[in-house]
């Protein structure tokens, strides 16, 4: 079975004699507690069957003036496509978690602004693995064992301490950073921008704050024809301007082959981003009414500015994940 717990999408999970095998702690909970706390269909607080609830939802949506569809990152591509189609027919807004997550970096990948690759290719070929602003120990628990640092690959048959080079960039010594020992580097940064700048200056042969670290890593990158940077939320929120990061990846590619993969958490955020991108040329926060994407159409902004009268929320809990400034608007919508 495939685990939908995070974007690793581990495909080797099986259940035997009541035990879940191979899933990490989070994945195991999804299978073992499948039947607990299931949502039930309700209309105005009263439990109803699903068909009645859907009929009522259609009725509400037909009367809506400014409907928004939000979430969708934990659903399948077919459901995402349908949601986009519904939003288009309703002339409404559509957004997912990526508007405050890694959407901007996924968009850069889809537009071909930075070279990218797949996790299977990483396992078979990658030498330098950079985890930048992400701690997969918590967010993507099997990432390093299934796809990157630890598995043997076709061109990397000798194991992690000889055939891989691990780099961890973070503001603190995370669990992942503690794994950076032999053939590895941990760079504890005060500012991600300074490290990005250092990489670019070292490529140009100039002095910089992190020149020593950047120089060592660039030399390692030159040894292989396949290196990869995984960027997480620490990278996204650590940099005010992601263009300088894209520029850094381009500059590194002048001297070594370096790919970039956004290390997002949600199981199918990438699916939503790609599906909407194919249709509109944008990955999130899209208004079919205005025919464009913009920060003002992010679900958080729509709520804060009270621009919507109906919200369809799919597979996410905005009370849990969005800032409290959005909660009053959600409460109004509920009424």
């Amino acid at each position: 079975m495939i685990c939908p717990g995070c974007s690793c999408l581990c495909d080797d999970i099986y259940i035997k004699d009541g035990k879940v095998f191979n899933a990490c702690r989070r994945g195991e909970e999804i299978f073992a507690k499948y039947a607990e706390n299931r949502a039930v269909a309700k209309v105005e607080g009263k439990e109803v069957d699903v068909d009645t609830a859907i009929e009522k939802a259609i009725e509400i949506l037909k009367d809506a003036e400014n409907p928004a569809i939000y979430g969708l990152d934990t659903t399948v591509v077919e459901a995402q496509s349908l949601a986009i189609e519904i939003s288009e027919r309703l002339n409404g807004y559509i957004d997912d978690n990526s508007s405050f997550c890694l959407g901007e970096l996924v968009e850069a990948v889809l537009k071909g602004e930075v070279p990218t690759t797949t996790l299977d290719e990483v396992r078979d070929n990658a030498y330098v693995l950079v985890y930048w602003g992400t701690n997969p120990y918590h967010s993507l628990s099997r990432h390093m064992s299934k796809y990157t640092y630890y598995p043997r690959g076709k061109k990397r048959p000798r194991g992690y301490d000889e055939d891989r080079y691990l780099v961890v960039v973070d503001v603190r010594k995370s669990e992942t950073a503690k794994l950076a020992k032999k053939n590895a580097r941990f760079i504890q940064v005060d500012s991600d921008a300074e490290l990005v700048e250092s990489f670019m200056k070292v490529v140009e042969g100039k002095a910089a704050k992190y020149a020593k670290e950047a120089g060592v890593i660039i030399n390692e990158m030159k040894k292989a024809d396949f290196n990869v940077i995984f960027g997480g939320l620490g990278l996204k929120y650590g940099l005010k301007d992601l263009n300088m990061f894209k520029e850094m990846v381009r500059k590194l590619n002048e001297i070594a082959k370096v790919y970039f993969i956004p290390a997002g958490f949600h199981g199918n955020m990438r699916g939503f981003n790609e599906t909407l991108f194919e249709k509109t040329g944008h990955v999130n926060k899209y208004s079919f009414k205005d025919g464009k994407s913009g920060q003002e159409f992010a679900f958080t902004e729509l709520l804060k500015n009270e621009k919507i009268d109906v919200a369809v929320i799919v597979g996410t809990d905005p009370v849990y994940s969005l800032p409290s400034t959005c909660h009053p608007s959600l409460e109004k919508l509920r009424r």
Partner: protein
Amino acid sequence: MDESLCVGCGNCVVVCPVHVEKDPKGAAVGNGPTIEDPILRVENGVVKVVNMQACRRYGRTASSVWFAGRTVQVMR
């Protein structure tokens, strides 16, 4: 093994040299073990030692040790 600290990442399952040798298409390439008698496997989200006897370092210490590529009996 302190299971309370384990998140079930499977790093130990994949790096285990015995698994790499015996399970080249399973644990060696990052998947869960596909062999019947792995030393470690992740069960219910945490790692379990299920076949310590096969471990080259700790498995035979009760009566013998792995030395210079062969099993040597320990004199007690």
